[in-house]
C-alpha cells in the first residue's frame, strides 16, 4: 500500500513536470513569435535612426547637441527551453534556445534606446555599448534570465 502511494506520488511529480514542459513550450513559442513580430515591426519604423559604434561624428552644418540615451530589458526563457538547455549542458555544444533569448533581448534594448532618442528628436546614436548581466534564481550556472542594457550618445541636429 505504501509502495503504491509512493509510486503514485512519483508519477504525479512526473505529470507536473511534463505539464510544465508543455505549457512552457506552447506559451513560450507564442510569446517568442509575438515578440519577434513586434521587434521587426518597430525596427522597420526606426530604421532611419542609425545606431553606430563609431566615436567620431560626421561633419555637420551646425554643431549638434548630444546626450546620453539608454534602453534595457530583462527577459526570461520558458521552462521547456531551459530544460533543453540543461540537456545541452550534459553533451556540450551550441544552445540555440539561449541564442534567440539574447538576440531578442539585445534587439529590444536597442529599440527602447532608439525610441528614447526619437522622442528627443535625435537623428543618430553614436558610440553605442552593450552591457549584459545574468539574473539567475540563486543557482550559479543557470543563465535563464538576462538583463541587456544598450546605451549611447544621441545626436540631435540643431536648427
Amino acid at each position, binding site marked *: 500500500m505504501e509502495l503504491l502511494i509512493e509510486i503514485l506520488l512519483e508519477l504525479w511529480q512526473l505529470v507536473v513536470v511534463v505539464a*510544465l514542459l508543455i*505549457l*512552457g513550450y506552447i*506559451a*513560450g513559442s507564442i*510569446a*517568442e513569435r509575438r*515578440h519577434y513580430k513586434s521587434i521587426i515591426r518597430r525596427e522597420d519604423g526606426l530604421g532611419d535612426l542609425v545606431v553606430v559604434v563609431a*566615436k567620431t*561624428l560626421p561633419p*555637420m552644418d551646425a*554643431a*549638434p*547637441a*548630444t*546626450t*546620453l540615451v*539608454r534602453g*534595457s*530589458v*530583462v*527577459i*526570461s*526563457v*520558458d*521552462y521547456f*527551453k*531551459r530544460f533543453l538547455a540543461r540537456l545541452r549542458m550534459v553533451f556540450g555544444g551550441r544552445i540555440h534556445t539561449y541564442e534567440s533569448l539574447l538576440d531578442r533581448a539585445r534587439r*529590444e534594448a536597442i529599440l527602447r534606446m532608439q525610441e528614447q532618442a526619437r522622442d528627443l528628436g535625435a537623428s543618430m546614436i*553614436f*558610440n*553605442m*555599448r552593450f*552591457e549584459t*548581466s*545574468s*539574473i*539567475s*534564481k*540563486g543557482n*550559479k550556472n543557470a543563465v*535563464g*534570465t538576462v*538583463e541587456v*542594457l544598450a*546605451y*549611447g*550618445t544621441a545626436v540631435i541636429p540643431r536648427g
Partner: protein
Amino acid sequence: MITSTLETVPDKTIREHLGIVQGSTVRAKHIGRDIMAGLKNIVGGELKGYTELLSEARDEAFARMLEQAEAKGANAVINVRFSTSSVTQGASEILAYGSAVIVE
C-alpha cells in the same frame, strides 16, 4: 549637465579635466520572491518588474554620478560607461562612471 559616451562635445572645447566621477547602487533581485517572475520563468518573456527595478537602480547610480560631477564644478560628463556586477548571489551592483570636465 551634458552627458555623453563620446570623448568630446561637438563645437565645444574641454577647458579642464576634473577626474573620474562615479555613482553606484547595490540592489537585491531575489527572483523567487516575485510570483509573476516565477510564472514568467515557466512561460518565458519579459520580466517587467525587473526591467523597472534595474532601470530605477541605474537612474540612481547615474544621478549620484552627476551629483559628484556637480560638486566638482563640472558642466559635462564625457565617456560615460555603465557596468553591472554581481556582489553576491541575488544582488548586483550597478555602476555609472565617466570623466568630469568643464567645456566651453
